[in-house]
Structure formats: C-alpha cells, structure tokens
C-alpha cells in the first residue's frame, strides 16, 4: 500500500499549480477623498497602477492562477485587468477578476471564496497594493515542506521584513509586536501596537517554551501563504474580519484547534504595502531609489510602451518630455511622457505623471502629481498629492500634507494650509467607500442635499477666486472604528527629525479627532463655512468633538443616580450601560466621552445643586471617580479612549463656562483614580490639532490645564527612578 500512496503523492506534486488570491480592496478610507472615484488598487504609484506591481510580483513568483477579488468600484478593476497584458495570448499566468459587491471586509471575501471553493492548494494571500520583488515560490515551498513534514497543522506563513521602528516604510498603524519560537519560526504571540510603552506577554508562552524571540523590528508585508483550509476557517468563525483577527483567533485557540502559524523573514528582497499616504510616499521613494529592482521606472515602463531614461541622482525622464532651459530636476524625480516643465522651475523628490504642464518658476518638493495636472507660474508646492486633472492656478502656495483630489481647481494667489484635503465636488453625507461611485454626475444634486445652497459654493476666500474645491471630512462607519487611525502625512514625516516624540503625539491626536468626528455629518457644515468665532474664547465653543445624543446622556445619568442610591454593583452597572449603548445605538466612544461629564453631573445632583464650581461638588466628584474607578477603567483602557475621555472633560468644561478654573482639578481626580495615565495627558497637552478652530480651542484648554500639567511634570521627574524599577520587573 505504501508505495502506491507515495506515487499518488508524487503525481499531485507534479500537478501543483500555484494559486494566488489578490484582495483588491482595502475596506478602509485611508486614501479618503481619492478612492471615491478610483479603487486603491488602481491608484498610480510612480505612474504605474498599484495592482500591476502586485501582479508582477506574483508573476515572478511563478504563480499560474490569480483571482482578483474586487469590491469597491470593481468594474474599473475588471476593465483594467481585461486590458492588461495578462489577458493577451501567451501570458504566463491567468488573472481572473471576481466581483463581490457585497463584501465589507477581508473576512467576507474569504468566506465567499470558501463558498465558491476556488482553492485547491496552498495559495498566496495578498492585497492589491503590495510592491515586492520577491520570488514567493521559495516561501511557498517552505510552507509546503512544513505542512507535508513535521508541522502538518501549520495553516499560514506570514512574511515580515526587518525594518526598525521609525523606518519610513513601516506603517505606524500596522506596527506589530510578535514572539516567535526560535528554531521552528512558529508564531506564538502577535499584537498590533500603536505605541504602548509596555507590552503584555502571556505567561504561558514563557513557561511553555524555552527558546523564544521577541521582536519589534519587523514590518508586516501583508503577504501570507495559506493552506487551503484557511477560507473554511473564516467561514467557521464569522467574526473574523481581518487577517489580524484571524491570526489572533488561531493563536488563542491553538490548544483547541491545534492550528499553527509560522513566520518567514525576507532577506535582501523588498516587500511593502501601500497602506496610507505616508507609506505611499515612502514606497515611492524606495522605488525611485531602486530598492524594488527590477520593478523600477526605467525597466517596467518599457513594457507599456513608455521609455524612461535613468539619469544621475535618481532622475527618471520619459523620452518625450519637454524641459525648458533652466529648469532643474534635482534628485529623485520621475517625469512621465508628454509632460512639459517651464523655465526656472525647481523639482526635487517628485513623481510627475503623463501630460502634465508645469509653468515657470515653480517649486515642487516631495510631491506627487498624477496625470494631466496643470500648475501655473510661481507656485510653491511642498509634500502634496495632486490627483489627475488638478489645476493649480498661478501664485499658489501649498503647504505640507495637502491632498487635492480629482479635478480640483485652486487659486490664484492663495495659501493652502497644511493637512488640507480638498475634493472637486461637495461631499455628500451618505457617501462612504463601500458605496458605489457617484462620479458620473459631477453636478451637485440639489434635491439630495437638504443643506442650503450657499454651502454648495466653494470657499473662494480660502481657495481662490476661480476655485473648484471643497474640503473633505472623513466619514467612517462605526464598524470600522477599531481600525480607524490616520497618519498625518507630510507634517509628521517632515518634522520627525527635530522632535520625534511630539510628532507621534500629533499623529495620535489626529487619530482621535478623526475618531470623534465619526457619525457626525453636521460637523462639516458647522466648522467650515460659518466659522462662528466667539470673540472671548477665540474659537467656536459649539464645535465640540462629538455631538452627543442627549436622550442617551440623560438616561446614563439617571442610571448612575439610581446606582449610587441603590448601591448597584459595578458589574451590573456595566451591563446596564452596555444595554443603554445598544438601545440608543451610540458608539462606544460616545459612552467614554460622556462618562466624566455624567460623573460630574452626578456629583452636582448628589449635592442637589446646579453645576457650578463648588468645592462640595468637586469633592464629591473626586469621591465618585474613586468609587467608579474600576468601572471607568473598564471603558477607558488605552491611549485612544483616554484621549476621548479627556476631550469629554474639556468639552464639558467649555459647555459650563464657570467650571473653567476647575479643569486641572477634574483632570487630577481622574488621574488619581488611575483612569488617565500621565503619558496620555502629556500627549494630549502637547498635541496640535488641525483646523484653526480646533487649534484655538486647544490653546485655550492648554492655558486652563497648565497648573496641573506643571505639577504632573514635576511629579514625573521625581518618580523617574521608581518607574525604571517598575520596568525591570
């Protein structure tokens, strides 16, 4: 019997044809105003659509069958694949687009895949925005050997590349801590970390394994080799949304299911994922510096008829570019075909697409211009992303981190503040990435928008007299909330040299701001066009971080009052709060945001007074925070939620103007109750929010909380030694 079985195995071995699954959707809105018209996989990276890099990487890995799963704007991807060289006769691999309009997460796609049972063998799971020059077949072979050999239960091999923290291509949101078993390269622990100082390691790992390596120097390439069982595991566990969920789920249930995950670390080769603007920038630079060789502009451009010339200082020029006398392409520049550049223009660190027109005396630095962009004379652009058909009229200055979406027109003679994101039509409330494009009818539809027509007009003061530009505000579905974290591209990267710590804090503040604004469609209208400025405060006090549901708030307060009179235990109280949250369908952030305010109102209620800066109320507030500190800690767990809570306190203080002097006291109470950590408070204090109103407000709050911060800083200096001792334990 045995030899026969062996023969059959060999036959199978020969039939083995490598399959790959490309998820051509990100299921998030990192490329906010851009991806509403074009899916992320088709965005050009150094003038070539991202998906092409992924497919090329699969082609050099010897993949025969590729399934591209398209969700958002899938028609465009299908059309792109239809026209690509993979559909020509003689292509070494077949690329099949699969349309899955209804899928909202990677988990959905894999479940769908399981239902269609497309996968027969080990396969490569990859997203449609990977740039790699790695021959993956080697790793697939390793994985196969492992699964055929001693570790039959291995279901996945994840790829990592060494890149120390702070590396430009290392996506901050995807930063991971992991523990591997030394010899077998088995993954034991995997955790995403935004930036925690402390790491929790399950003690079982330390007890059960002799040889473990803890690593924080790895960058997740988002490429994995999966066993055919993986899609069915996703079907079994319908709560797996992302690969991270899957990995964690497998690791946690390892003892029950026996499935294992291994890792593989890339040597010498390149692989990275374009997951946000910052990595888009970094990976573009890597391509220009030829890390992705052979996928560099002068070598892959030639396949689609475009010839790039490579010149000194990493300058790539297409053959038919018009360069005026005296224009200076300094270094790391890519210029696409048909582009003309005027006299006295200085360009460095830029990627310029096809048929762009750049005027005279323009300064372009670290920017990305896609196709057909027009830039008139004397503009100054630093670290910006300009999509196709953008027009920048003369004498415009664009500061760092600006994104101009499709067909935006700005100018003349304006200064665009850093971090602005503009789109060419008014943002509609019901839009998010999962929905279908509305790019067809670019005229704003009057019927659909109940806001006044005045808001339909672009802000000519801010964006110039001939502008066609509307600010973009991020809308996020509450489902995505845990993933929501946006890197503040441009500003953070450029300042990282001078003050690394503050840079991070600003990123976090940005994150929490984005988070707070979710589910608040009115925010845009309130903030931008009207700009009601309270002269005494210097900012608009009504533009609070979060619109709160008053009915919910009232109910929450009542619950607390009842709890304190009836002495309901914490556990039951938590249950009640959670049921309230579901009853009113409020996001968890709103609960956190409301909690400090509720506690203060409770204190006032107990003393049967209105909300004033009364010593009695303050002391009972302190008592309340101590009493409920365990409960608060249940909700306010990590940095983000702490920031939300701080914002809650601040907005509460601003709403009740006579409470202003008590802000330090309130923060102190929460700090003493171990609800807020000093790191978070200092981060909040040092952050710089975007938008003039926000900035003013923050400045005001900083002034208010100064005494407490001073105290905190002193205390920190004193306790540094003891902290060190803690860390050693």
């Amino acid at each position, binding site marked *: 019997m045995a030899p026969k079985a062996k023969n059959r195995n060999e036959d199978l071995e020969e039939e083995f044809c490598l399959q790959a699954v490309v998820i051509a959707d990100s299921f998030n809105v990192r490329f906010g105003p851009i991806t509403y018209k074009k899916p992320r996989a088709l965005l050009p990276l150094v003038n070539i659509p991202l998906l092409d890099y992924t497919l090329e990487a699969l082609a050099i890995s010897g993949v025969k069958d590729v399934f591209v799963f398209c969700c958002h704007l899938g028609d465009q991807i299908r059309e792109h694949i239809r026209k690509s060289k993979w559909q020509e*006769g003689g292509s*070494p691999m077949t690329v099949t687009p699969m349309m899955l309009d209804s899928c909202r997460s990677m988990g959905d796609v894999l479940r769908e895949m399981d239902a269609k049972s497309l996968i027969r063998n080990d396969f490569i799971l990859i997203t449609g925005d990977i740039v790699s020059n790695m021959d993956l077949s080697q790793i697939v072979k390793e994985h196969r050997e492992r699964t055929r050999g001693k570790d039959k239960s291995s279901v996945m091999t994840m790829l990592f590349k*060494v890149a120390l923290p702070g*590396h430009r291509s*290392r996506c901050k949101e995807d930063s991971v801590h992991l523990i591997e078993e030394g010899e077998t390269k088995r993954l034991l622990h995997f955790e995403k970390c935004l930036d925690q100082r402390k790491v929790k390691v399950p003690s079982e790992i330390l007890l059960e394994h002799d040889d473990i390596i803890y690593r924080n120097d790895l960058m997740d390439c988002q490429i994995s080799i999966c066993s055919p069982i993986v899609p069915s595991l996703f079907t079994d566990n319908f709560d797996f949304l992302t690969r991270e969920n899957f990995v964690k789920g497998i690791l946690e249930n390892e003892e029950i299911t026996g499935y294992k995950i291994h890792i593989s670390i890339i040597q010498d080769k390149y692989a990275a994922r374009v997951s946000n603007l910052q990595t888009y920038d970094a990976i573009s630079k890597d391509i220009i510096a*030829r890390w992705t060789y052979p996928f560099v502009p002068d070598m892959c451009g030639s396949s689609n008829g475009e*010839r790039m*010339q490579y010149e000194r200082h990493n300058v790539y020029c297409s053959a038919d570019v018009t360069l005026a006398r005296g224009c200076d392409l300094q270094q790391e520049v890519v210029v696409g075909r048909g582009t003309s550049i005027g006299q006295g223009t200085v360009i460095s660190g830029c990627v310029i697409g096809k048929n762009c027109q750049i005027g005279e005396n323009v300064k372009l630095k670290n920017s990305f211009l896609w196709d057909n962009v027009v830039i008139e004379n004397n503009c100054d652009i630093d670290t910006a992303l300009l999509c196709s058909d953008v027009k920048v009229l003369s004498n415009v200055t664009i500061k760092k981190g600006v994104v101009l979406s499709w067909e935006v027109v700005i100018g003349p003679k304006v200064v665009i503040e850093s971090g602005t994101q503009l789109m060419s039509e008014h943002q509609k409330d019901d839009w998010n990435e999962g929905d279908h494009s509305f790019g067809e009818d670019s005229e704003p539809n009057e019927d659909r928008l109940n806001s006044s027509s005045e808001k339909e007009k672009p802000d000519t003061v801010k964006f110039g007299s001939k502008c066609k530009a509307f600010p973009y505000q991020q809308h996020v579905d509450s489902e995505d909330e845990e993933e929501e974290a946006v890197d503040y591209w441009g500003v953070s990267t450029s300042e990282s040299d001078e003050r690394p710590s503050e840079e991070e804090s600003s990123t976090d503040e940005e994150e929490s701001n984005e988070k707070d604004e979710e589910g608040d469609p009115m925010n845009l209208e309130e903030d931008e066009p009207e700009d009601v400025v309270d002269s005494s405060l210097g900012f608009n006090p009504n533009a609070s971080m979060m619109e709160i549901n008053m009915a919910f708030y009232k109910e929450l307060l009542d619950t607390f009052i009842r709890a304190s009179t009836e002495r309901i235990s914490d556990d039951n109280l938590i249950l009640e709060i959670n049921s309230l949250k579901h009853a009113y369908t409020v996001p968890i952030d709103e609960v956190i945001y409301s909690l400090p305010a509720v506690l203060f109102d409770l204190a006032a209620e107990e003393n049967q007074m209105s909300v004033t800066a009364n010593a009695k109320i303050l002391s009972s507030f302190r008592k309340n925070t101590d009493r409920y500190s365990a409960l608060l800690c249940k909700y306010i767990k990590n940095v983000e939620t702490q920031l939300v809570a701080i914002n809650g306190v601040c907005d509460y203080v601003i709403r009740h103007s006579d409470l202003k002097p008590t802000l330090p006291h309130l923060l102190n109470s929460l700090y003493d109750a171990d609800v807020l950590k000093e790191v978070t408070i200092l981060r909040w204090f040092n952050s710089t929010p975007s938008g003039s109103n926000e900035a003013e407000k923050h400045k005001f709050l900083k002034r208010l909380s100064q005494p407490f911060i001073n105290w905190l800083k002193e205390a920190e200096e004193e306790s540094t030694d003891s902290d060190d001792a803690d860390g050693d334990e």
Partner: protein
Amino acid sequence: MPAGDGDKANDLKERIALFVDELKKGTSQGSCDVAIKTINLLIRIISQTKFSTEKDLIRHVAAEGSKIQAGDPSENIIGNIIFRVLKIIRDEWREISQANDTEAQISHTLKASIIEAVSEFKTEIEGCVDNIAALAPNYINENDVVLTIGRSRTVEALFKHAASKGIKFQVLVSECAPFYKGHEMAKNLAQAKINTTLITECQIGIVMPRVNKVVIGTHSIMANGGLKAVTGTNILSVLAKETNKPVIVCSSMYKLSPLFHSTPKHASFNKFATPSEILDYEDAELLSKVEVMAPIFDYVPPHLVYMILSNNGAQPVSYVYRLVKDFYHPDDVEQPTNS
C-alpha cells in the same frame, strides 16, 4: 489551418513572454545563453511569418525583436543578434533575387535559405567559447601570473584549456563586489587544479606590478572598441595601463555592438541594480539621507585595451570599426530597435 496558426502564434507569444520574464528577473545563464535563446526565438519568428518582400520581413523581425529587447533594454546582445539576423536577411535576399526572377520563387527559397543561414550563425555562437579557449596556449605561458576580475565563462574556459595543456600558471581573481561573482570563478578554477588566489578590488593596485597580463571577459564591446564590462573593470584597466600590463579581452564576436557608449545619458548602456547589497534596508536613519548607486557595468575606453581575443582569432582594438561594418547594416542600426 487558421486554428493551427493561432496556436503557433500563441505559442510564440508565450515563449517571448517567458524569455522577457527571464530577462527581467535576470536569471539567464550568461551571454551565450541569452544569444542562443534570442536566435531561437528569431528563427521561430521568421519561420512563422508570411512575407512577400524582404522589407516586410525585416520590419516584422525588427518589431518582434524590440519586444524581446524591452525585457532588458541594456542587454546589447539581444540587439546585436537582431541586427546580425537582419543583415543575414538582407544578404540572402540580395543573393537570391540576383539568381531568380519571379517574386514567388524568391520568397519561397528565401525563407529556407535565411533559416539555414541563421542556424549556421547559431552554430557559430555555440562554438565561440571553445574556439577562444583553443587559443589559450598562444597567450598563456608557463609561470605567468594572470589577473582577472569577476566571472566570465569564456575566461574560465580559456584558463581551464591552458591548464589541460599542462601549462603551469597562477591566476589572481578579483572578487568583484558587491555581487562577488569572483568567488564562483575562483572556486571553479581551484577545482580544475589551477593555482588560484582570490583578492579584493582594493588589492588590485598592490598585485599589479607582479602580474604578467590581465585577462578579462566583457559584457559587450561598443562600436569604438570600448568595453561594457562588470564594475571594477575600468579601474583594473587603468592600473594595468599605468604599469604597462597588457589587457586581453576574451569576447565572442556576437558581443560586438554597433552602438556607441557616447553620452552618459545613453539609455541602454548601464544598468543600476538594487542598493540592498550595499546598504541595509532596515537602517532607517541612513536610508533617507544617502543616495546609493549600484551600477552593474563599467565603461572601459578603447585605449586601455590591448587586444580582443575572439572566435575569429586575436583582433586589435583599432580594427573594431571594420568588423562593425562587416557585421551590421547601417539601415538597421540607425533605427534603434527599442524606439
């Protein structure tokens, strides 16, 4: 038989795509391999083309050739082979059109004779390395100290042939950083029982005075006799010139290119590899501050080269222009394949 034709055309496309992929990946085994693969493809292309005049055929072959060249624009050998085949087509056509009168006759016999001539050329290429190696006893003497750089299959064959003739000599191999092909070379020579020493590039200047001659391979020879050879060859040749040591280049004739090096902007002259051999990607701080260039080739000006050892015997560098005129037709060259 349209279906059969379609299959054939698809098959050809697939073969071209495979070869282009291979070029992109850079996994081909030396220039002889590239030359043979190109010529095989060209034979297929010619045999599948229906043509009435020689112009049609030339246009078609040039167009298909440019697709192959696109796989690696800096690989001159592909261009050379295409130009040589075009020249063969021209010559054959002239001969046959003089002998025959009617057009139908011409195109009928033309295909067969072209394919025959191209196959002959292929046989010539296959024999190149052996032909050159056979010259070894004339150029490598007893007790010679020979310096070489990197790995060249031709040079390796030459040394092995000399050793097989019982000549005792010493070879110094420069390792050719950052790709370290010299390591492979030294290993192969040592296995053939040749007295071999591996040195680094910075030692070239030190050993040069006690070297008798420098024997190197090259990627290709430009039309002015300059070399396109692995990085490090230029400094090696300069040092050899300084100490008056002859630089002997072993190169098959198909490596002779009708193009000039001319300007530093020459699109297809050099190739720049990934910086990963030189700089660690993980080093975040350095990465954004330095610009790393990793050119694969050096240009060696003709006056540094003593002679070329080819399958047609030894050729002086000053005679290269004449060879270019013999091998290539100016009409083909003036219109570069990759435009």
